[in-house]
């Protein structure tokens, strides 16, 4: 790894494969949601993937294999290479509040070599949300075969609501994440080519 590399290749590949799989899961999940909405509105069918329940499910249970495989590679690499420990830790409440105040007043400079405390918190949360999305998803897909898992989440109905709420969290993350990338475009270069600087 050259000294200039911000993101190693495995991180960039799992990031983009995971992003594509997650977006596919969200859009097809919306088609499934529309068949029996939990809230008093539906997602416009034009925004969903598949357009109807059967196709939404087909996309959902196709992309889930990609998301799970990608997630497992990312998590295994993150732990074994100590990437998680180096990039995300330590994370303290004081640092988060300090950096959050800086970010909201546009006084937090972006450091390409080191995540600030707000980034650490958001990335940790979205990874946790992704893991919980897969687990709640498995428990509503197989509430009999994975009955213990479903029971851990409080049963089928609660697991289903958690699955929906976690999707909302990931969508919120995506909005913040994409906005921040638009504000600091060199981060996009780093995630595509590996380095923020040419």
């Amino acid at each position, binding site marked *: 790894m050259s000294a200039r590399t911000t993101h190693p290749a495995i991180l960039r590949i799992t990031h983009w494969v995971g992003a594509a799989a997650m977006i596919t899961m969200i859009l097809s999940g919306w088609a*499934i949601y529309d068949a*029996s909405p939990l809230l008093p509105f539906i997602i416009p069918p034009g925004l969903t993937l598949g357009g109807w329940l059967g196709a939404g499910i087909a996309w959902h249970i*196709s992309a889930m294999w990609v998301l799970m495989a990608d997630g497992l590679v990312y998590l295994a690499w993150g732990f074994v290479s100590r990437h998680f420990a180096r990039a995300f830790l330590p994370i303290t409440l004081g640092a988060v509040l300090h950096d959050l105040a800086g970010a909201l007043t546009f006084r937090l400079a972006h450091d390409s070599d080191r995540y600030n405390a707000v980034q650490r918190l958001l990335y940790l949360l979205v990874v946790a949300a992704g893991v919980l999305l897969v687990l709640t998803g498995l428990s509503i897909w197989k*509430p*009999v075969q994975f009955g213990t898992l479903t029971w851990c989440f409080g049963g*089928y109905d609660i697991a289903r609501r958690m699955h929906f709420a976690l999707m909302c969290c990931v969508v919120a993350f995506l909005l913040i994440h994409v906005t921040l990338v638009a504000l600091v475009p060199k981060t996009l270069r780093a995630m595509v080519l590996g380095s923020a600087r040419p």
Partner: protein
Amino acid sequence: MIRLADHRTQLRRLERRHFLRRGLSLGALTMLTGCDLSTHDGFFDRILWAMLRFDDRVQAALFNPHRLAATFRPDQITRPFKFNAYYPISQVKPPPSDWRLEVDGLITDNTPWTLDRLRGLPQEAQITRHICVEGWSQIGQWSGVPLKIFLQHIGADLRARYVAFDCFDDYASSIDMASALHPQTILALDFEQSPLSPPWGAPVRLRIPTKLGFKNPKYISTITVTNDYTGGYWEDQGYDWFSGS
């Protein structure tokens, strides 16, 4: 005189509308190009149909014949229980006056069954969660003949791959033999301790809590034991065939 300044907001609004419509038709485009299971030769549709078959195999491998669906107490039963079919409740038909349960395929005894004869077989009761493919669920109470006992009585080849159901409301479905032999899979005759009434599938329906609701056909007229895949009403349109819980 027409001044541009007077119409700028209006123009901007039109532009925005045009942009939105193009965005929406992009969504419509994805439907036209076959990524919604409407075709069998579109690029994405071929992948999706193949993935559905793959998921069926995974689900069959995950199926544990000894694992039971959770059961509930009588006070947990959902009331009122929601009617569901591919048509509204107003179109429910009572059973034909000459109704008999026909049996066909890889079996040794083709004699049709009357309701009385079915009631003469051992009965099993259950309070289980019925989960719809749409996501909603409700807890109900059914009792009837375990399908395994029924299949043994008609001399079915229990090594056959499928048990198929045809219904007098033109519905159809089929299940794998392993799920058919599961102890909680019953030919239900009663709902909430009374004989099935027309909305709940009179006179006989399948109750299989290890599969999604649409795999629980009502109004059964013929049961066929077969090695040939017969799909079903929803399965042919793209709901995944195994749909195990």
